[in-house]
């Protein structure tokens, strides 16, 4: 009589041991994984109910702050959609983006009940949220965004000597407040469904064909090779026949590169002649061009606070494919770049061949206003020798003074620049401008891209469409 009852008891108690094992697994072993699961609403709720730090621009203007008190904090964004991409959001429904995500730990108040933070509190550690000082100049950002207007595209301005980002514009933008408020669901769905993709950060997350601004790389490869100088001359046909194929390369206007039978590298650069650079590339060979592109960071991960799409030189070996190499040398074919990378590239030229790591946050400041961490500028890579960089600078100065980049001229300041008009099959071209100023002591380097020609459409060109945007932005910086 008793042994079956004993066995039933044993069965129940074994069941409870299994419960115990499951509970230990859920609450101890796998707790962190489940707890931080993005679908666990607690994670987001805990964040939104906690005070978060403030972000200010380089001169102290508040860009985002937490308003309210004790568990009812609301993130407010005084500049609306101007800074949506770099600042980002921490949203219950749409996850975390931008600096709000990257600096989540610093920005969050540590006043909670985790054992470590309670102990830290007893030890007198500061539990208040930290604040961020950004490198962005909000006035400059405003000018750049206004200059770009309703056109889709991006503007990135960088301090060449440090890599500090001065303006970070991706249009169309979005107001992060829409994604965290009570109407976040419908607002977010609208943004998500918008064909212009306002939630896409074009600065780091969109790859474009660079067009002629890539000639900077080709020029650097030529000068670094030692075989070609700015004075080296090449033939000047209306259309350059590409060996081993039926296709030809011609210049944007369909004419020769200026007059004369021969054209120098310098004139080819200033007038942005495709025929000249195709010959340069075929003279140099694919290896030298690819090596130079790699020196500028093509195919490398850019060290940045956000993940940056990798710029691409070519997916295939171009050594035996001269037509492809010729097209690559003028920034067509398979070359793809991000606006941030192009800004870094031109900042590298301005910085005499040294590319700096880009950064957005200059200081982390504690609750008392004391600086906790200061970002030290860090070199990323050496792209070219100083002499090559200086030679290219001179070419870019000439391009602005007497060539395609005239639209970027600023009264009283020498601007260096290079335009690009990247052709797209069956669509309007992307208009590019990269440059810096003042040419001899650069304090700002800039990359502008206007997607599919912007308002000008098929008529768009780097000189007409992108250069004026860069001009307005740089002028605001140099003559505040």
């Amino acid at each position, binding site marked *: 009589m008793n042994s079956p009852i004993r066995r039933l008891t044993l069965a129940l108690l074994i069941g*409870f041991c299994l419960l115990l094992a499951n509970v230990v697994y*859920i609450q101890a072993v796998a707790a962190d994984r489940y707890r931080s699961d993005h679908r666990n609403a607690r994670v987001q709720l805990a964040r939104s109910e906690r005070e978060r730090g403030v972000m200010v621009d380089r001169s102290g203007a508040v860009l985002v702050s937490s308003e309210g008190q004790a568990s009812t904090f609301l993130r407010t964004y005084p500049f609306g959609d101007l800074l949506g991409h770099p600042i980002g959001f921490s949203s219950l429904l749409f996850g975390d983006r931008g600096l709000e995500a990257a600096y989540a730990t610093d920005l969050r108040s540590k006043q909670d009940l985790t054992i470590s933070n309670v102990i830290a509190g007893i030890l007198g550690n500061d539990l208040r949220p930290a604040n961020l000082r950004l490198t962005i100049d909000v006035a400059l950002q405003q000018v750049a965004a206004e200059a770009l207007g309703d056109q889709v595209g991006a503007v990135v301005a960088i301090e060449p000597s440090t890599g500090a980002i001065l303006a970070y514009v991706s249009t169309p933008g979005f107001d992060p407040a829409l994604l965290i408020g009570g109407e976040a669901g419908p607002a977010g769905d609208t943004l998500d469904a918008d064909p212009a993709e306002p939630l896409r950060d074009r600065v780091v997350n969109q790859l474009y064909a660079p067009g002629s601004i890539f000639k900077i790389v080709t020029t650097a490869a030529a000068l670094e090779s030692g075989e070609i100088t700015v004075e080296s001359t090449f033939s000047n046909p209306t259309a350059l026949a590409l060996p081993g194929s039926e296709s030809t390369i011609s210049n944007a206007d369909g004419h020769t590169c200026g007059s004369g039978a021969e054209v120098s590298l310098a004139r080819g650069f200033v007038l942005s002649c495709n025929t000249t650079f195709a010959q340069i590339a075929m003279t140099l060979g694919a290896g030298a061009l690819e090596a130079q592109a790699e020196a500028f960071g093509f195919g490398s991960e850019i060290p940045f606070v956000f993940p940056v799409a990798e710029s691409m030189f070519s997916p295939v070996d171009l050594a035996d494919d001269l037509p492809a190499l010729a097209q690559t040398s003028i920034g067509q074919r398979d070359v793809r770049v991000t606006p941030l990378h192009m800004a870094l590239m031109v900042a590298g030229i301005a910085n005499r061949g040294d590319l700096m790591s880009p950064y957005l946050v200059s200081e982390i400041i504690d609750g008392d206003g004391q600086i906790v961490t200061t970002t030290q500028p860090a070199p990323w890579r050496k792209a070219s020798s100083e002499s090559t960089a200086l030679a290219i600078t001179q070419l870019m100065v000439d391009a602005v003074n007497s060539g395609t980049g005239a639209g970027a001229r600023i009264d009283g300041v020498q601007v260096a620049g290079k335009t690009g008009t990247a052709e797209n099959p069956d669509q309007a071209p992307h208009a590019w401008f990269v440059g810096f100023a003042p040419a001899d002591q650069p304090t700002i380097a800039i990359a502008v891209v206007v997607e599919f020609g912007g308002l000008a459409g098929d008529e768009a060109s780097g000189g007409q469409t992108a250069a004026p945007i860069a001009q307005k932005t740089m002028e605001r910086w140099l003559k505040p």
Partner: protein
Amino acid sequence: MTRNAEGALILAAALMAAFGVALVNIAGQQPIGADVALTFFVMVTAFGALHAAVRRWAPKGTPYLLPLAALLAAVGLSEIYRLNPEMASLQKWWILIGAGLGILTLWGLSSVGTQILRRYRYIMLLLAMGLLVLPLLPQQWPLPIRGLAVNGSRLWVSLDLGFIEMRFQPGEIVKLLMVAFLASFLAERQAALTMRTRKVGPFEFPEPRQMIPILVAWFASFGVMVYQRDLGASLLLFSAFIAMMYAATGRNTYLVVGGGLFTIGAAAAWSAFAHVQTRLEAWLVPFEHYETTGYQISNGIFALASGSLSGTGLGLGRPSLIAFAPTDFIFAAVGEELGLVGSVLILAMYALIISVGMGIALRSRDLFRKLLAAGLTFTFGLQSLLIIGGIVRLFPLTGITLPFMSYGGSSLVANFVLIALLIRISHEERV
């Protein structure tokens, strides 16, 4: 342990309930006040009166069960208060009513003993059948007692007394009646069931004639419960049947046949009911069906995981994100706020109640009492095991309540009576 120690522990449990409610108030930055005092008062009144009744009518009864039940009720009540203070005030009434019925049970059995249940087994069976079909009464008719459909299941009965409408699930009481009937029936026929057998292949079966009443009871209760779509309760009842037959006869045949019947029943339920398929799916891969069927289980797991080792603290977690937190998922809510330590303590309390109850069964000398104690404890233990197992994904989720902790009057009342019966049995057996 002495009666005085029992009283002291009951007082401690009442203080814990008040402390829990006070913590919820502190966490919510509300003034500590009436609710704390009221909770303490209700707990002391309910369990104190029960304790007094045990002293008077079952002085030799086990002293362990009441404090454990009181502490479970205290933790449950604090958590329900934290989730929904209005539900907590209703729960307080149910605790008082449940304790009252427990006292009534002790008083009723004080002169005649549990043997009275043995004598009136067929009346209990009829009563159980009657209660089972009560929810199938029309929802609209002149009598004050009506069936009630809640969430598509017809498990509820509404008793409209004019000034107050009371709702209850007769299934919980049916469980007790069926266990008592079975204990009585099996105690009577134990010899016949054990001795006279008929061999079918490798299995030995009792004479079919001996089995008729049991099969009738089983088919009736099972059928009605399936009709009412309360699969959790049918599973519970069915397992209790099998367990008690096994306990009475010691024959593995019953386990094998029971297992087979269960498999057939489960397969049939799976193919017949869409909601059974959904539950199975939600059990196996809850996170892949997060948006739909897996939502409830996933959130239960998130809650437990967010509690981690020591919990968020009462009133400081977010158990309101769990659907059905006060009823089916109270364990997950407590696990979030009291952490792994709290969950393990809750499990330990149930395991202790099972040990004490089965201990009473093991040491009972009278067959009927032995089977009654074993049956009651088994149903209690299995119910706890199934619902907690459903939350931690050991089993598919069954919509049954966690004894003493979940919100719900019928369940509380039934479990108070169950504990009172166990105490009475232990008193009669002086163990």
